[in-house]
C-alpha cells in the first residue's frame, strides 16, 4: 500500500473515483507514512481517528457516486489554521492547550469538499521564520540531505512542517500561509510546489494572524495541478473577512492548458543580487530558456525598488505583529504565568510564552510604531511599499508574469544563520516583494543544487491572476522534469 502515498493528488483522486482503492485505505497509508515520518517532527498534532472518520464519510459518498471535489484526499494543515476542537498552537508556548471553538474558513471549505485531515503541521513560531527552527515544538528536519552528508537540514519556513510532510509523502497535499515567503521558500527547500495566492483570494478568517496586510493562506502540493485543485476549493469570497476579495474564482485546473505561447515573461534585473550563487543564476537562466522554448518571450525588466522590499517588510510585518500578538496575555486562553500583579502576570506570561524571534519582532514592531518614531519607520515603510507596488504595476503593463529564483540558496543546516537575524531574513529576499504588492506567486521545483538539494523557480503574476501563474508554473514543471525524491524516502 505504500505506493498510495507516492501518488499525486490528481492520481489519487482518479483512483478513488474508479474505486481502485478506498478513502480509508488511502488514509491508512498516509497515517502510517505520518508515523514513519515522526523523526522529521513535521507534525505537532496527528489526528488519525478524525482522518479515518472523514475517510469513511468520503467512502460513503464515493460509493453512491456523489463524490465531492476533494473526497478522501488526506491533507496536512499548518498549525496556524484554527481547527474546531483540535489543539491549535501556532507553534508557540503561549497558546498551550488552546482548542478553538471554530474552524477556519479555508479548512472548513476543504473539509466540506471531502478532504481528510491528517494533522497539524509544525511551523516557525507564529509563522515568524525561514527555517522552522523557532517552533516551541522543536525544529523540523528537511526530508532531503546532502548526499554523503548526514547533517540534518532545515525545511525552510515558516510552513516547514507542511513542506516536509509533502516531501516525505506523509500527505497528498498541504496548506500553509505566506507572509514573506513562508509557502514558497520551504517549497523550494523541500522540492515541492507552493503557491501564494493574491492577498484577499483566500480568507484569513480563523488563521492565527502574523502580519494581517501580508498574510496569505495557500496550497502546497507535489505538482502544479495538485496546487490548482487545492486552490480551487480554498479560494473565494468570505463575508467574515473584510479584506476578502468579492471576485469570482476561475477554473484553475482548466487553466492548465499547457500553452504559454505568446506570453511575455519579465526577468527582473534587480533580482540578480550581489553574491547570488552561480548555480542559482544558472537555473534562473535555464528557466527563462525553458519558457522561451515553450513559446513565451522572456523580457528583461526593471523593478528598481527591489532592494528596499526586505527592510520595508521588516518594519511593516513586525509593526502589525506587535499589535496582533497583544491578545496573548494570559487572560482568555493559552498560557498564564502567575504574577504578583496584573502587569507582572502579563510580562511573565509574554516573556516566557514567546520565543526569541517572536519577542525580537514584537519589540521592533512596538518601537517603530511608538511615539516619535512612527513617521521615520512605519510611515516611511508604507510609502516604500507603495513604490514597490508601483514598480510591479509598471512591469505588468509590459509583461504577463515574472520569473525569478525562489530563494537565494538551497536548504541549509539546522543552526546555520542562527547567530545573525539579518542573514536569516535574507532568505526571503526574492519572495517578499510579491507579499508587499499582494501578488500571486508560485514556487516550482526546477533542479538540484551542486550538493544535490532541490531549488525552486518562482513565477509572480498580476493580482488575482493565479490562473496565469499556474499555467506558466506548469510549463516550468514540464520542462524541468523534476523527478528526484527526498533522501528520507530512498534511505
Amino acid at each position: 500500500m505504500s505506493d498510495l502515498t507516492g501518488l499525486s493528488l490528481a492520481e489519487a483522486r482518479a483512483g478513488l473515483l474508479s474505486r481502485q482503492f478506498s478513502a480509508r485505505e488511502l488514509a491508512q497509508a498516509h497515517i502510517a507514512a505520518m508515523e514513519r515520518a515522526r523523526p522529521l517532527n513535521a507534525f505537532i498534532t496527528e489526528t488519525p481517528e478524525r482522518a479515518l472518520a472523514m475517510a469513511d464519510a468520503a467512502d460513503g459518498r464515493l460509493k453512491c457516486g456523489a463524490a465531492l471535489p476533494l473526497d478522501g484526499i488526506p491533507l496536512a494543515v499548518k498549525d496556524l489554521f484554527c481547527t474546531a476542537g483540535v489543539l491549535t498552537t501556532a507553534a508557540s508556548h503561549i497558546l498551550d492547550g488552546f482548542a478553538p471553538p471554530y474552524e477556519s474558513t479555508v479548512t472548513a471549505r476543504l473539509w466540506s469538499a471531502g478532504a481528510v485531515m491528517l494533522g497539524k503541521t509544525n511551523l516557525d513560531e507564529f509563522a515568524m521564520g525561514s527555517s522552522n527552527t523557532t517552533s516551541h515544538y522543536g525544529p523540523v528536519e528537511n526530508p532531503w540531505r546532502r548526499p554523503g552528508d548526514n547533517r540534518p537540514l532545515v525545511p525552510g519556513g515558516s510552513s516547514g512542517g507542511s513542506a516536509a510532510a509533502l516531501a516525505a509523502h506523509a500527505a497528498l497535499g498541504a496548506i500553509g500561509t505566506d507572509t514573506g515567503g513562508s509557502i514558497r521558500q520551504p517549497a523550494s527547500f523541500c522540492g515541492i510546489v507552493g503557491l501564494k495566492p493574491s492577498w484577499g483570494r483566500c480568507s484569513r478568517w480563523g488563521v492565527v494572524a502574523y502580519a494581517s496586510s501580508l498574510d496569505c493562506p495557500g496550497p502546497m502540493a507535489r505538482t502544479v495541478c495538485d496546487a490548482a485543485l487545492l486552490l480551487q476549493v480554498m479560494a473565494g469570497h468570505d463575508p467574515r473577512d473584510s479584506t476578502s476579495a468579492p471576485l469570482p474564482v476561475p477554473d484553475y485546473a482548466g487553466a492548465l492548458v499547457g500553452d504559454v505561447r505568446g506570453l511575455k515573461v519579465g526577468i527582473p534585473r534587480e533580482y540578480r543580487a550581489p553574491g547570488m550563487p552561480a548555480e542559482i543564476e544558472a537555473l534562473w537562466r535555464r528557466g527563462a530558456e525553458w519558457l522561451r522554448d515553450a513559446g513565451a518571450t522572456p523580457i528583461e525588466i526593471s523593478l528598481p525598488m527591489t532592494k528596499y522590499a526586505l527592510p520595508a517588510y521588516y518594519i511593516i510585518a513586525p509593526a502589525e505583529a506587535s499589535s496582533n500578538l497583544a491578545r496573548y496575555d494570559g487572560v482568555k486562553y493559552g498560557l498564564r504565568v502567575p504574577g504578583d500583579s496584573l502587569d507582572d502576570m502579563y510580562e511573565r506570561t509574554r516573556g516566557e510564552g514567546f520565543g526569541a524571534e517572536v519577542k525580537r519582532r514584537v519589540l521592533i514592531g512596538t518601537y517603530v510604531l511608538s511615539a516619535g518614531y512612527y513617521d521615520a519607520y512605519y510611515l516611511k515603510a508604507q510609502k516604500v511599499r507603495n513604490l514597490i507596488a508601483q514598480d510591479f504595476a509598471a512591469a505588468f503593463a509590459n509583461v504577463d508574469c515574472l520569473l525569478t529564483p525562489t530563494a537565494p540558496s538551497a536548504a541549509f543546516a539546522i543552526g546555520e544563520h542562527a547567530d545573525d537575524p539579518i542573514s536569516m531574513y535574507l532568505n526571503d529576499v526574492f519572495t517578499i516583494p510579491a507579499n508587499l504588492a499582494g501578488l500571486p506567486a508560485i514556487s516550482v521545483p526546477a533542479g538540484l543544487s551542486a550538493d544535490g538539494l532541490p531549488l525552486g523557480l518562482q513565477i509572480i503574476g498580476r493580482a488575482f491572476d493565479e490562473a496565469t501563474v499556474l499555467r506558466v508554473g506548469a510549463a516550468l514543471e514540464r520542462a524541468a522534469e523534476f523527478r528526484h525524491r527526498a533522501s528520507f524516502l530512498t534511505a
Partner: protein
Amino acid sequence: MATAELIEGRTGSWEVVIGLEVHAQVTAAAKLFSGAATAFGAAPNTQVSPVDAAFPGMLPVINRHVVAQAVKTGLGLDAKINLRSVFDRKNYFYPDLPAGYQISQYQQPIVGHGQIALDLPDGRSRTIGITRLHLEQDAGKSLHDQHPTQTYVDLNRAGIGLMEIVSEPDLRSAEEAGLYLRKLRSLLRYLGTCDGNMEEGSLRCDCNVSVRRPGGPYGTRCEIKNLNSVRFVMQAIDYEARRQIRLIEAGGAVAQETRLFDSSRGETRPMRSKEEAHDYRYFPDPDLLPLELDPEWVAALRADLPELPDAKKARFVADYGLRVEDADVLVAERATAEYFETVAAGRDAKAAANWVTGDLFGALNRLGRAIEDCPVTPERLGQLIDLVADGTISGRIAKDVFADMIETGEAPGAIVERKGLRQVSDTGAIEAAVDTALAAHPAQVMQYKTNPKVLGFFVGQVMKATQGKANPGLVNELLRRKLASA
C-alpha cells in the same frame, strides 16, 4: 467671548475652560464589528462572540446600521460628514480590552466639525463647537470588588459601538457643561442613535478642565474620567476649577493628569495606577479598509432625519404661541413634544402646555414614570380640556377629574358622569343658593359696600353649597348683581 461666569479667587478673577468628550453607546441590535447582542443587563459573558473575546484568527466586519447612526448623529450636530474615514488600532493592555487594542478612529474620523446651540437661563444663547465624532469599540467591564485578590472581567460590553463626541473647549461653567450634556442627550434621543441612559452607562463623559485669567492663555488641563451623571459632571467641574485656582494662587502649578471623581466626597483625585506616558501606537487596522460612504446614502439619511429640538422649539413658539421656556421644556424629549402636540391639536395650545408642564409632569414625577407609560393618554387629556372649554365642568373640577384619570386611567367624560360632576348652569338653582348664602350672612353683605373682596367669601359659600358644580361665571354674575342691590 462675553462670559459672566468668572470665579473670584484671592488674587483676582478666573475663567474656567471646559471641553467634554462624551462616549455615547450607539443604539443597535448587534456590536460594531461582531454579531453579538448589545442588550443591557445580560448575565456575564453571554453576549460575547469569539471576535469580541479576540480569539486567534477572528476578524472584524462592520455593522452598517452603526455607521448610519454615526452619520445621523453627525447630521444632527450640523457637522461635516467625512465620506472617507479610517479605522485605527489604539494599542494598550488591559484585561477588559481582549485584543490588546481598541479599534477606533484617530486621524480621519467619520464626522468632522459641527456645533450645538445652547440657550442659557439668562436668555443668552451660545454655540458650542464640536471638534469631531468618531466610531470606536467599547471595552468590557472589570469588576474589582467581587473577590479579595482578583478582578473579574465581563466582556458583554466589549465591542459595542460607541460614538466619541468631542467638544471644543468652549464651555465656561459647570452649568454650561450641564446644559450641553442635556442638550446633547436630547439630540441623541431624538435621533434614536443613543438611548442616553447614563445610569446604564450608555452615555459617559470625560471632562477636560483648566482655568485661566479672563481672555488669557489656556492653563494646563486635567481630564476627569468616566462621569456618569450630569450632576456629577457639574460637581466635578466645580470642585476641579476651585482646586486648580487654589493651587495656582498658592504658588503651585497644575499638573496635566487624569483624575477620578469620588462622588461620595464630591472631590477629584489623581488616578492611583501610575500611567506610563501614553503611547498608544495608533496605526491603521490592517483587518479593515478605509470606510467609504456614498454621498447618496448620506443624503438619504439626511432626508430621513426627524425634526430636531431646536427646530421644534421654534415652531412651538411660532405656531402655538408658547412662551420660550415652556417650549424648551416641551421639546426636551421627543415623546413629550409628541404628547403635547396630540393634546394641543385643534385646542387652546397654551391650555395644553399648562396641563402638560403642570399637572401631568407633577403626576409623572410623583409616580416616577416616563411619559411613554403615562396612565393618561394625550387624547384623553385633550378630552378633559374640551370639557372645561365647553363648560361641562369647571377648571377646579377638572383638576379633580385629572387626578382620577391618573389613578384609574378612565376617560374624563366617564368620570364626570360617574361622579355627577357636571357643572350646574341652571340659573334658578344657583339663584336659590345665592339667596340662601346672602340671607345667612347679613354682616358680610354690609361689608361688601366698603370691601368688594367679600365677593370671594360668597363665591366660596355658593360653591360649597353646590359641591363645586355651579358654573363659576354665573355665580359671580348673580352675586355681583344681588350684592349691589342689597
